[in-house]
């Protein structure tokens, strides 16, 4: 029988998008719907004296203008801390700024009108009297004693700090033959989903029911948030996430504006729509990264890595995001350092600082690109210091493929990874010797090319160890309801959600194989708290590994139910039967009864079944990962670039990825997840940066000025796989969503530095802009002429 797991099935739900039949929240219009526009602070830090809404209130179409006093009263504040981050602080956050504004873009008033245009007309006339104060923009300065407070409700500017260390770090450095160091800066960037954040909150006072159409990854989380913060019974809150125009972690955080839309709908009893425009997105969507890291690595004379030590300063905005916090990324950075390598000692220090900028939080590949870039820059320097080839030094230090289970120096438990096999495969794909020869000859013509590689470990399939242990109400389990229709067709309602990754497709493939049907006969419903069971949904690479396993187990329970029924109907031992090609077959492979016939009998003629037999063709199953706290995956990437040393422009010529995400359910979708992820790694490496001036003003807050990677600048990406299934589940699948993003920037930086090696120049800051490249070249020139 054909197995559908492992097949490159196309996405059924892509057809709607290709026909222009997508259903995004931003497409939806409800009767009596009002449009919300927020009036925002133009300054990063200040005290509100007066908000004058009188002129604005008189504008045509305006229904209501809220300020903090009225709107905030409807909603309890939220606090972005986690219990397992000891000592962490974050002041409470409300929908609208009350006395203090904390970042440029902080909402201070909410205008509701019959159309977005009329709401914007009125917002222009809301008069703000805000006395500006000196903002805190530099995280390092913020942590010095006596620094002004970014958030006056906080004790100080230290949101969280942590140290992770083994016993013998200092001894390892003291006894090292080589110590290499790097100071690196990783710019702030943001998700820039093509569909901005969108919500329509619809409170029906007659029934007390709140329905929120919400472009989010995590509908169940928001059902809980809205229920608790607005004092509504959970059963009266329904969250529907239809098609979502990109998310990447950005659309699972709690934002002032969505909370505002719900509060306004509760007060007014009408649907309230808020769709961020692009300028608002830059000022309110979470930003990501913004790290300054000092790292060093100790090696023995043979080039064996002995130890690493890093300090990470994460700069997060004026509050910590809710409910996942803004400290989780730094926490992950210091734990993923050196992860691919055999290394016995390690010290990582993390400081998370408040500042008057947009809050940062989890975005695709949380912490991975930072840890990977620092580690791989150090490995590259170690290769130089020891005279080893970049492939050779990695071959010597990557954890051996037969050395599992392995516990990293930072305490992560790896079940089984395949670094060495990936390295060998990448070598075969890249042919580095040929590249080197070509580069040497091109250099004679003044053309500077370089390649770089970067190994990585990716965290996927997190259990409750991620957030649950810290007290956050973020589900670590997922649920599926699988049922057979009278026709024998299958339906699966599942808690993992779809933002285009292909969740629904892989769930159909998994369920199909359990029930012996083709995926075309399996329809899948996601994204609605009223019609699907509760679960964690799609984030941190849970869709395939946890969602897939949930579907598999639910499917097997339905299979068993069907076989029991079939056994009764065809007078056979259910254990001798199995499902194949839409029918029940016996040990000889002969079809005994079709699914359709079972469906017909169980639905329309249950009276013909033996007494007491369970004829319900619906099963529910919930699954939470057990065993390892996370399923780690691994891989390696290579990047080939050409640097124009006169202009600082870089052409990315080619990118390679070898990846091991365990059992591959759908290679077509896996490869495109990797490619998309790579581009989200290359974007921040070369282009993307939220630029702030010293006054805390975002100076490139539009799509004309914030440079996202576009088709002309991105390379073709060659992908290969090693498949090491996890033994923790039947399915064996791990996640793949973060893999591309995790190491693309690190490989690219090593490639740029390889190209610049003849000049002795080195980049240590992302994005690697033309200006930074020219500065690095000048610095190297000065160093040589001025010893």
């Amino acid at each position: 029988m054909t197995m559908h797991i492992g097949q490159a099935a196309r996405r059924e739900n892509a057809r709607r998008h290709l026909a222009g039949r997508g259903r995004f929240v931003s497409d939806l219009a409800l009767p009596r719907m009002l449009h919300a526009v927020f009036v925002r602070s133009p300054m990063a830090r200040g005290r509100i004296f007066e908000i004058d809404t009188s002129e604005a209130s008189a504008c045509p179409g305006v229904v209501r203008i809220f300020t903090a006093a009225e709107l905030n009263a409807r909603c309890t504040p939220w606090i972005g801390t986690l219990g397992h981050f000891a000592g962490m602080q974050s002041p409470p956050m409300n929908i609208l700024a009350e006395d203090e504004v904390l970042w440029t873009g902080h909402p201070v008033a909410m205008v509701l009108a019959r159309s977005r245009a009329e709401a914007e007309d009125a917002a222009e006339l809301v008069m703000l009297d805000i006395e500006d104060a000196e903002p805190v923009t530099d995280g390092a300065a913020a942590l010095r004693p006596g620094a002004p407070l970014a958030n006056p409700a906080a004790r100080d500017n230290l949101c969280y700090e942590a140290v992770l260390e083994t016993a013998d770090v200092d001894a390892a450095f003291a006894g090292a033959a080589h110590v290499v160091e790097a100071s690196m800066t990783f710019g702030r960037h943001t998700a820039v989903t093509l569909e901005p954040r969108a919500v329509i909150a619809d409170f029906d006072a007659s029934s007390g029911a709140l329905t929120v159409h919400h472009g989010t990854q995590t509908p169940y989380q928001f059902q809980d948030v809205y229920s608790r913060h607005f004092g509504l019974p959970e059963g009266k809150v329904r969250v529907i996430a239809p098609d979502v125009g990109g998310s990447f972690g950005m659309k699972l955080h709690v934002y002032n504006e969505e909370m505002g839309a719900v509060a306004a709908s509760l007060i007014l009893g009408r649907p309230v729509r808020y769709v961020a425009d692009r300028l608002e997105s830059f000022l309110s969507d979470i930003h990501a990264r913004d790290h300054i890291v000092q790292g060093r690595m100790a090696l023995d004379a043979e080039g064996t890595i002995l130890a690493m030590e890093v300090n990470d300063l994460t700069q997060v905005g004026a509050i910590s995001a809710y409910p996942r916090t803004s400290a989780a990324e730094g926490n992950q950075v210091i734990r993923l350092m050196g992860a691919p390598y055999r290394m016995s000692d390690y010290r990582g220090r993390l400081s998370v600082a408040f500042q008057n900028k947009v809050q940062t939080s989890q975005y695709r590949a949380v912490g991975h690109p930072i840890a990977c870039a620092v580690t791989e820059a150090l490995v590259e320097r170690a290769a130089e210091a020891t005279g080893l080839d970049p492939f050779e030094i990695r071959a010597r230090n990557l954890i051996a493929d037969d050395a599992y289970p392995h516990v990293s120096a930072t305490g992560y438990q790896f079940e089984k990874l395949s670094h060495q096999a990936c390295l060998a495969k990448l070598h075969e794909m890249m042919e580095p010797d040929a590249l080197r020869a070509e580069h040497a000859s091109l250099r004679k013509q003044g053309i500077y090319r370089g390649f770089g590689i970067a190994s990585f470990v990716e965290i996927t399939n997190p259990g409750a160890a991620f957030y649950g242990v810290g007290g956050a109400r973020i589900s670590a389990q997922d649920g599926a309801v699988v049922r057979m229709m009278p026709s024998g067709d299958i339906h699966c309602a599942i808690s993992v959600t779809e933002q285009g990754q292909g969740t629904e497709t892989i769930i159909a493939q998994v369920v199909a194989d359990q029930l012996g049907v083709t995926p075309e006969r399996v329809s899948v419903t996601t994204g609605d708290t009223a019609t699907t069971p509760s679960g964690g949904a799609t984030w941190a690479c849970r869709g395939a590994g946890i969602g897939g396993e949930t579907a598999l187990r639910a499917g097997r329970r339905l299979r068993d139910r069907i076989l029991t029924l079939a056994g009764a109907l065809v007078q056979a031992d259910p254990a001798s039967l199995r499902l194949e090609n839409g029918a029940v077959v016996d040990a000889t492979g002969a079809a005994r009864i079709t699914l359709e016939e079972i469906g017909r009998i169980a639905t329309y003629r249950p009276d013909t079944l033996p007494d007491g037999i369970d004829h319900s063709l619906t099963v529910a199953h919930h699954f939470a990962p057990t065993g390892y706290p996370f399923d780690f995956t691994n891989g390696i990437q290579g990047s080939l670039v050409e640097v124009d040393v006169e202009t600082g422009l870089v052409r990315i010529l080619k990118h390679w990825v070898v990846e091991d995400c365990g059992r591959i359910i759908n290679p077509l979708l896996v490869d495109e997840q990797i490619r998309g992820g790579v581009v989200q790694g290359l974007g921040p490496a070369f282009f993307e940066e939220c630029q702030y001036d010293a006054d805390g003003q975002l100076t490139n807050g539009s799509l004309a000025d914030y440079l996202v990677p576009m088709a002309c600048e991105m390379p073709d990406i060659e992908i290969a796989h090693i498949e090491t299934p996890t033994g923790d589940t039947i399915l064996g699948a791990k996640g793949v969503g973060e893999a591309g993003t995790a190491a693309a920037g690190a490989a690219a930086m090593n490639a740029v530095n390889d190209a610049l090696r003849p000049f002795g120049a080195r980049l240590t800051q992302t994005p690697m802009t033309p200006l930074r490249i020219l500065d690095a070249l000048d610095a190297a020139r000065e160093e040589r002429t001025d010893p």
Partner: protein
Amino acid sequence: MKLDGEQFLNADPQTVWTALFDRDVLAGAIPGCESLDQLSATEFAAVVKLKIGPVSARFKGDVELSDIVPGQSCTLSGKGSGGIAGFAKGAAQVTLTPEAGGTRLCYDADVAVGGKLASLGNRLIGATAQKLTDAFFANLSDALTPPEEARSA
């Protein structure tokens, strides 16, 4: 953003100094000034309308002279709110030095914009600030140049 420059003015330092504190001269020198009300010897309330290419905004704010060393130096600062477009502020330290036939005016300015102007105007913020600063001191120079000389120049 830091801007500095200097301008030779065809008048003695005392005349220049007096002009800097003269409402009419200031109103004529501030680019796009629609109104300037004197609140005290050193404080003014201003309405300024600026149109630079595709951007047009009306700012309401104040202009102030401080750090006064009579006849020699002062700080000329201003800030204005342009409503939803954002705000602009700046301070210029101005020093006057007598020179043959007139006065050398040196300025050292720091200007900033906020809100939408900051997030959208980055590409041309430097050029705009320079243009407006140049225009202010050129207008001041014109005001101090006797009309007949201006005509013959």
